[in-house]
């Protein structure tokens, strides 16, 4: 394990905030993308059924 010394809290806090924000952004991007894709597919199906 890497030795961070007296600044361990500082370094880990910086990495922790970054990981949280990046993962949050990725999760929001993927969930919104999947939701819109499903809604569009449902709309296209409904419209093709109704002619």
């Amino acid at each position, binding site marked *: 394990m*890497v*030795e*961070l*010394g*007296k*600044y*361990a809290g*500082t*370094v880990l*806090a*910086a*990495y922790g*905030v*970054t990981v949280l*924000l*990046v993962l*949050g*952004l*990725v999760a*929001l*991007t*993927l969930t*919104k*993308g999947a939701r*819109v*894709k499903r*809604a*569009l597919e449902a*709309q*296209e199906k*409904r*419209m093709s059924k109704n002619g």
Partner: protein
Amino acid sequence: MSIWEYANPKKFMQTSAWALPWVTGLAVVTLVAGLIWGFFFTPDDFRMGSTVKIIYIHVPAAIMATGTWFMMLAASLVWLIRRHHVSVLAAKAAAPIGTTMTLIGLFTGAIWGQPMWGTWWAWDPRLTAFLILFLFYLGYIALWEAIEDPDTAADLTSVLCLVGSVFAVISRYAVLFWNQGLHQGSSLSLDQEEHVADVYAWPLWVSIIGFGLLFVSLVLIRTRTEIRKRRLRALEARERMA
């Protein structure tokens, strides 16, 4: 083949579907490689101790924060001049990524600044310009949400993007313009006196490439979502009219 072909939503969807797995895979590999190399396999700095490891997230995030705005500026200019919808949807898609990168730059800068400068925050030219850039990102996103007509929203957000570019330039070059404040100059400057040592620079370059590829991957995914949203709205409108 002309670059303007990609302004066709169908062509963009086809090309991005092919490119996405490659770009995303490369982004994950370079990001993980750069961060592991920097975190586990570089020595402490003689002045900054182990806090030097923050450079592998702080610098790439700061570069992406201003770089994203410049990408949005280019895409907005394409919209204003040539009226290509895909370009302005790409700018809209990029804004939350730029906001997140600016936030990471501000947070990691504050966390790093506390032990090094003795303060979380100073009204230093670069820090202040970065905070204003963050507010411009929020304003840009809010303006998109506030205007119902998509073309009007695209016009007004594009103009806001032009204005905000002043702060993106200041954020990047404030240290050169004013030569004062707490923030140091460029870590990857060609000037050997400012440039970080090679042992830190190489993993830093890998991290920067990783952040850049992550940005491209997320912009592609989010632009595809915006194009689908636009088609969904058009179909719903057609259904209501029928």
